[in-house]
């Protein structure tokens, strides 16, 4: 079996599994005052320091959450509510047109229910938010902008936006910028302090930690209204009993992913390049989506996103799955229906091309054999899918 869907979720690192298993049998609420509570609290705080150290943040800037979706919701809604409370004119939310649904949907909800005005900042043909586009969106009414949210690296096509530049630009207008760095951490150099973002989303299961735990790095002076009210465990921004084993495993995974990043990114990129080259050899009209640049700072190292003209992405996925090759189409709705990717549409591609696309993503345990399996399967699968064409539409 060739698992080529690491951008969806990647296996836990053995060290993270061990750390989590070691703690799962223990007891102690990190908010309790007795010895068991203190032991648990110590694990949490050491984990916080580890995450902070790995990502260039202060420990107090690490808010543990249940993962990427919660962090994105907290940042978008929390920043909106706080900024609007400070100045009622601030109702515009500027988000990249190719954002993940965990950012887009809260913004759409705020527009529908909370008086916000949603502004989609266009991306270029590679999926990147250019500073000029952001500036133009801000300049329409700078005083009315509540926040900006632009992802560090796109989850579908892997294109990187220049977050430090965009954050600096937003800072000129004293507007906080949130960035969803879920795909970036572990693949690219991410430094919270240096990038200038007000808030940054990271999650465990994309980098070798467990599912269900992540964090929002939130600048010390950034006000953010909570989503979850209760015990106020995390800086009063996030309540809920802390999941000590998961937090410890998450922190260890972040630490290892960041330590290994430079070396891993370089071999991942070469494996990815081999994958792209060999897929195009077999299917000469396959179109690579996103930034084709060889500059490692402009694209994720492990992602290859193609359109296969004349094919339905979901038919290809099924045919590859039957041959033991696991990959993904764009975004799937809750019923599992493949919809044309909004990312490709935002990049200016037509619906046909968006529907014919597949993402292959490599990760820490990928091997050349995975690529071999894909290369062996893709030719017949494309041929079949092409003959099926769009019969069911």
């Amino acid at each position, binding site marked *: 079996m060739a698992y080529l869907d690491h951008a969806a979720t990647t296996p836990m690192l053995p060290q993270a599994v061990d750390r989590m298993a070691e703690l799962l049998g223990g007891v102690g609420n990190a908010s309790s005052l007795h010895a068991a509570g203190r032991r648990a609290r110590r694990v949490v705080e050491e984990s916080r320091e580890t995450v902070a150290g790995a990502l260039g943040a202060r420990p107090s800037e690490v808010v543990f959450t249940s993962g990427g979706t919660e962090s994105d919701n907290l940042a978008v809604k929390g920043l909106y509510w706080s900024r609007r409370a400070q100045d009622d004119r601030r109702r515009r939310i500027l988000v990249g047109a190719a954002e993940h649904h965990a950012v887009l949907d809260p913004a759409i909800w705020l527009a529908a229910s909370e008086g916000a005005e949603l502004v989609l900042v266009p991306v270029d043909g590679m999926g990147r938010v250019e500073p000029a586009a952001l500036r133009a969106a801000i300049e329409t009414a700078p005083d009315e902008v509540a926040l900006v949210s632009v992802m560090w690296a796109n989850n579908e096509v892997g294109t990187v936006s220049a977050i430090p530049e965009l954050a600096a630009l937003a800072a000129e207008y004293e507007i906080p910028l949130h960035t969803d760095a879920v795909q970036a951490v572990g693949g690219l150099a991410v430094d919270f302090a240096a990038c200038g973002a007000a808030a940054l989303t990271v999650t465990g299961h994309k980098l070798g930690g467990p599912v269900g735990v992540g964090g929002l790095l939130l600048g010390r002076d950034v006000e953010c209204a909570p989503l979850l009210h209760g015990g106020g465990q995390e800086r009063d921004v996030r309540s809920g009993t802390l999941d000590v084993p998961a937090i410890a495993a998450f922190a260890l995974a972040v630490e290892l992913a960041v330590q290994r990043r430079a070396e891993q990114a370089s071999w991942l990129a070469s494996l990815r390049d081999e994958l792209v080259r060999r897929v195009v050899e077999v299917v000469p009209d396959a179109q690579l989506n996103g930034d084709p640049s060889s500059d490692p700072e402009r694209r994720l190292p492990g992602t290859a996103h193609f359109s296969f003209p004349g094919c339905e992405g979901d*038919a290809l*996925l099924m045919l590859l799955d039957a041959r033991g090759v696991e990959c993904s189409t764009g975004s799937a709705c*809750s019923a599992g*229906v493949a919809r044309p990717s909004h990312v490709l549409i935002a990049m200016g591609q037509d619906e046909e091309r968006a529907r014919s696309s597949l993402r292959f993503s490599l990760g820490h345990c990928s091997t050349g054999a995975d690529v071999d399996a894909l290369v062996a399967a893709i030719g017949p699968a494309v041929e*079949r*899918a092409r003959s*099926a064409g769009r019969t*069911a*539409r």
Partner: protein
Amino acid sequence: MKVLAAMSGGVDSAVAAARAVDAGHDVTGVHLALSQTPASHRDGARGCCTLEDARDARRAADVIGIPYYVWDVAERFSRDVVDDFIAEYAAGRTPNPCVRCNERIKFAAVLDRAVALGFDAVCTGHYARVVDGRLFRAADAGKDQSYVLAVLRPEQLAAAMFPLGGSLKSQVRAEAADRGLSVAEKPDSHDICFISSGDTAGWLRERLGSAPGDIIDESGDVVGRHDGAYAFTVGQRRGLALTRPRPDHAPRYVLSISPVERTVTVATAERLAVSRVECGPPTWSGAVCEMPLTSVMAQVRAHGGPVDCRADVVDGRLVVEVVPGLTGVAPGQTLVLYDGEAVLGSATIDRTA
């Protein structure tokens, strides 16, 4: 064989898929997403294609141990079944959307795609039997669905697999429970799957708007008003709200619908009987039948009883004479010809006399 099992999320299609696996086939489960905006759950026996149904289908596939995917056929379904349904009612006819779905979606769009993707057959939970390429009624007379499958041509039938045709529904439910399928007790779906409220007239009014007109009797006297002729079907008695009763108080039924004049004509029961049914071109389920057919039977609705008839093809169109007579026969309905248990073919009714 490589078999694609269409799984609605109901008990029948789940057991059908399981039986296909038992028969040694390489089975893949596919849930057809027919609605572009699926509801999150369904209410009792009405509707289907909700997210809950998709989840039930997924769970059944897990239990059976087959791969499972969702195919988005919402656009095709909307165009070929729902739009057709609306247009037919707007034209004063009474369509059967299940027939259209089998004809144009399940055993056309889906089958074509399945074959192109390397499958040999499409398996469904319909109650009907295929023997030597011919379609027969199911063993469970109460569940028989041969009527809605009679529109399939021989080549479609050749790639269809109905593993439940020889079983009783009660056996299928018991078998589902034995197999650990959680849908064993799920209620059967009734009515029209894309009208989850069950209120067809209201649903049509939302789409066709108000088109008020007169309800008249055969002498042309106005006996009531209506808000849209499309809300009526030939043979209907309830919901007429007639303002002028007959002197003898005999109940009246819809006799005919004229959408252009926006009139609905009513008459007493005996006037509804028809002896001659003229249809469009026939679709033969098996071999083309030699004409005329003398001792065959006709059925004009899914759960209506068959009646003896004589059938002929005149200028390419099927003409059926029934004895002693049928009531409530509406243009747009499907007429199916049977020879005993065997389906001969079908045609869409154009007019009656």
